[in-house]
């Protein structure tokens, strides 16, 4: 129990979640219900899966803006090809496309030294073009209902998508905390010079991280398309902005070195709960935008006040 208190103290976002749950439970009778929580888990799984990959990339000191387009590409491939190649094969190709986009981003960042923000900004624009080229601006639609049934199905009364999200969160946590690659992600992000001097190969680790987030974005896109039983060319717009928001809310620093999967999960759930709660309370969508923006800035301000101890008396 003590460990739980300890981790919550270190990540105020979980405090915020508990406060939100209490608040929404009182103000709306439908909020505090098992299947509403299931709904929240399913709804947040889309951004959540990408956020797991984004945590690795950001701790490593990089960023990835192309996830939104990768979501659309993977979804379009998975739905578009399943008629001809069958669902399993189409899904594999969709995931492969995501990993390939990640590999391209990773290689360019590694070998050319161009900043990840610029490389993935270019990829965001370019991959969206690929999606429109492949789909010729049309939405694709899964004729075989088994595909969309999967999205809506549940196993021992838990929605499949929620299960996948929880499972991958655990895997990501283990990958980051207990594997060699995970610890080196911190090393490269925390002190790149020390990492290089210690013989850690910075390039390959970056490449792995970008392929990982490419895979997660593709998986997120495909799972979203199973919910919809279709894919649209404009799928995933602004997902990169919401993913970065969730990871930053979870305590990951932008210039790398710090952050945890638990924190990111907190950030993702915080956004999910806020949206769901405000939906149930019928807060008009205009105000939701303002509330989300100001909460992000408030958390940023609180985080700076608590963690950064400026050296004494400096006033410049």
């Amino acid at each position: 129990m003590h460990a739980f208190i300890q981790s919550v103290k270190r990540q105020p976002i979980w405090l915020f979640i508990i406060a939100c749950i209490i608040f929404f439970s009182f103000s709306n009778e439908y909020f505090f219900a098992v299947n509403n929580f299931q709904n929240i888990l399913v709804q947040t799984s889309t951004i959540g899966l990408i956020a797991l990959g984004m945590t690795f990339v950001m701790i490593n000191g990089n960023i990835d803006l192309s996830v939104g387009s990768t979501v659309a590409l993977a979804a379009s491939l998975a739905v578009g090809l399943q008629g001809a190649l069958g669902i399993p094969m189409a899904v594999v190709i969709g995931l492969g496309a995501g990993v390939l986009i990640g590999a391209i981003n990773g290689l360019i960042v590694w070998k050319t030294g161009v900043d990840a923000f610029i490389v993935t900004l270019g990829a965001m624009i370019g991959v969206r073009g690929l999606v429109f080229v492949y789909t010729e601006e049309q939405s694709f639609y899964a004729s075989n209902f088994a595909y969309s049934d999967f999205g809506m199905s549940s196993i021992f009364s838990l929605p499949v998508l929620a299960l996948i999200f929880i499972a991958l969160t655990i895997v990501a946590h283990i990958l980051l905390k207990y594997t060699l690659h995970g610890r080196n992600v911190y090393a490269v992000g925390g002190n790149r010079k020390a990492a290089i001097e210690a013989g850690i190969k910075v390039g390959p680790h970056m490449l792995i991280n970008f392929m990982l987030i490419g895979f997660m974005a593709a998986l997120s896109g495909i799972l979203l398309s199973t919910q919809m039983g279709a894919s649209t060319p404009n799928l995933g717009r602004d997902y990169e902005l919401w993913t970065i928001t969730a990871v930053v809310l979870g305590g990951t620093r932008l210039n790398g070195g710090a952050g945890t999967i638990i924190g990111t999960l907190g950030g993702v759930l915080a956004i999910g709960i806020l949206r769901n709660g405000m939906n149930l309370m019928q807060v008009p969508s205009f105000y939701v935008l303002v509330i989300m923006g100001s909460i992000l800035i408030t958390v940023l301000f609180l985080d700076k006040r608590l963690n950064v101890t400026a050296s004494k008396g400096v006033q410049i």
Partner: protein
Amino acid sequence: MKASLPMSNSSTVATDNRKRVLQFLGKHGILLAFLLCMMIFSLTTDRFLSTGNLLTVLMQVSILGTIALGVTFVVIGGNLDLSVGSLLSFATVLVVDLHDKVGPTQAIVLTIVFTLIIGAINGTLVGYLKLNSLIVTLGMLSAIQGITLIYTSGQNVDIQDQENTWFAFFGREAIFGIPVPAIIFIGLAIILQVVLLKTAFGRKVFAIGGNGVAAAFSGIYRNRMVFSTYLLSAFTTACAAIILGSRVMGSQNNVGQGYELQVLAGVILGGTSLLGGSGSIMRTVIGILILGFIQNGLLLLGYPYYAQWLVTWVVIILAVWLDIAAKRGRLLNDF
């Protein structure tokens, strides 16, 4: 040429030449890319090089370009501004809505004032409170979009009798055949280039972007400077909104959607470094023109509008890679 370093062991002539070629490309690469792109399109489509088409493209990019001028100052100062997208929607909606309520002159003045107030909020959060500019302006992007929707409660706004209002001047008229939006864009670019290179303000923006600590140690008020770059970015967005409002004589709430990343693409393409401290207004103008001409050229060639996105992807990465390779003297990293 910098003081010649005694090259270590392999000082073959080849590495020197390669370094010099890279340096040349780094400096003038962007101009070459622009000319190359113009040449390709003018050869492949006969309509491309007509003055009519060139002026149309210049007019079409003038809105994106005007915003990019202010954002260039923010980036040279070492920060980012993602809020310009919804700020454009806000300002356009405001100027159009107020036009019929209080008349064009007051509408323009009030719009500039309110846009500057939002720019001041950005400037305070990033400049004085020293919060991370990417996340702050990301939050403001969402908040401003919300404010715009609340202001219009979701409605479109239109100017009733569009014919006899001098407000049409900004977006629709032309002087000596050159569309007014293009004149505003290029005029503002020239003024801001001079401000950047020739005035104390510009020199200080380079200083806080290049090395904020050294600038502060040299007596520059760093917070105030960062604050003013966000005011400038808000001002140029307001100007762009006036052009857009006048051109369309109406506005939807999400008219500025997606502009923020396109503006950044133009600034980066021009060679302004995201780390701050280097860049110029003219290079941004060229970056924006390249984006505009790629779009126009491909459309004239009959390619669908999304084909330009693929070309933009390749062009952005090539341009920045070239710039970094020139500085590093080597094409690829070795770690």
